């Protein structure tokens, strides 16, 4: 099984780290698509099949919340879960983010296991080709 994952973040470092975290989960074929902001992400999501989206909130041109709303308006959310990645840790702000149409919220710093857990919950075990002795635990991002 292969996956197409879109990462929307204006930080190139964060996009690299997320790609690395996903790659460490042991999925055989992952195609990564990248966007600098919500507007670019929306264009990609309109024109390409995307299985999962990771999005930042604070981005230029179009922020993450507006991006999620536009995805919903275009009827694309039903087929593509969106996970918000944020450095926000205030509980009321996090609750607001959880009350959006995003699938879930991950706060920074995050561990690779969190990414793995979400991939497992969304796609099931068959996407993984990692053997039981593959190590990724203890890796933090």
């Amino acid at each position, binding site marked *: 099984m292969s996956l197409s994952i879109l990462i929307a973040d204006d930080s190139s*470092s964060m996009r690299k*780290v997320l790609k690395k975290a996903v790659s460490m989960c042991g999925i055989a074929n992952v195609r990564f698509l990248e966007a600098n902001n919500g507007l670019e992400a929306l264009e990609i999501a309109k024109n390409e099949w995307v299985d999962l989206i990771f999005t930042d909130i*604070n981005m230029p041109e179009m922020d993450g919340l507006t991006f999620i709303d536009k995805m919903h308006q275009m009827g694309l959310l039903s087929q593509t879960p969106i996970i918000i990645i944020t*450095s*926000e*840790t*205030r509980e009321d702000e996090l609750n607001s983010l959880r009350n959006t149409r995003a699938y879930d919220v991950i*706060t920074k710093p995050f561990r690779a296991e969190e990414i793995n857990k979400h991939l497992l919950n969304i796609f099931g075990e068959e996407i993984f080709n990692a053997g039981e002795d593959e190590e990724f635990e203890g890796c*933090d991002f």
Partner: protein
Amino acid sequence: MREKMKNLRDVTSNILENMFFMYEETTPDQYDQTYKYCAFINNPSLKVRIIVGEKLGSLLCKNFLGTDEVNENDILDVLKEITNMIVGNYVGKYMKDFHKNIPVPCSVYLPKEYNPDSFEHDILFYECLPLCLVMED
């Protein structure tokens, strides 16, 4: 202000430990006090600067990205990301009455003669390299 600096220091130390596998050390007898990179948040209620020299900037970047090949754009980007995480965690833990949007960090190069002594600051050490935290009211 002392307590605020201590709290900022604790948050910074936790972030670098958990996300970068870098553990704070005691103050070395001597260290290079030349700083090159600065990432900062500038809000009337919250002004924080994270300042590092070339070697520590490069080390942080390599640890974060998991690669030995990094350039100065990568370093500045990672420093902004570190600042983003530090401020996000600090506000969540110690500024529960802060109801504004946390500003996006910016980054700059510092002049060689830059000296943080005129500001309230604290210094953490990683591999004998200084990471300077500046906080202003």
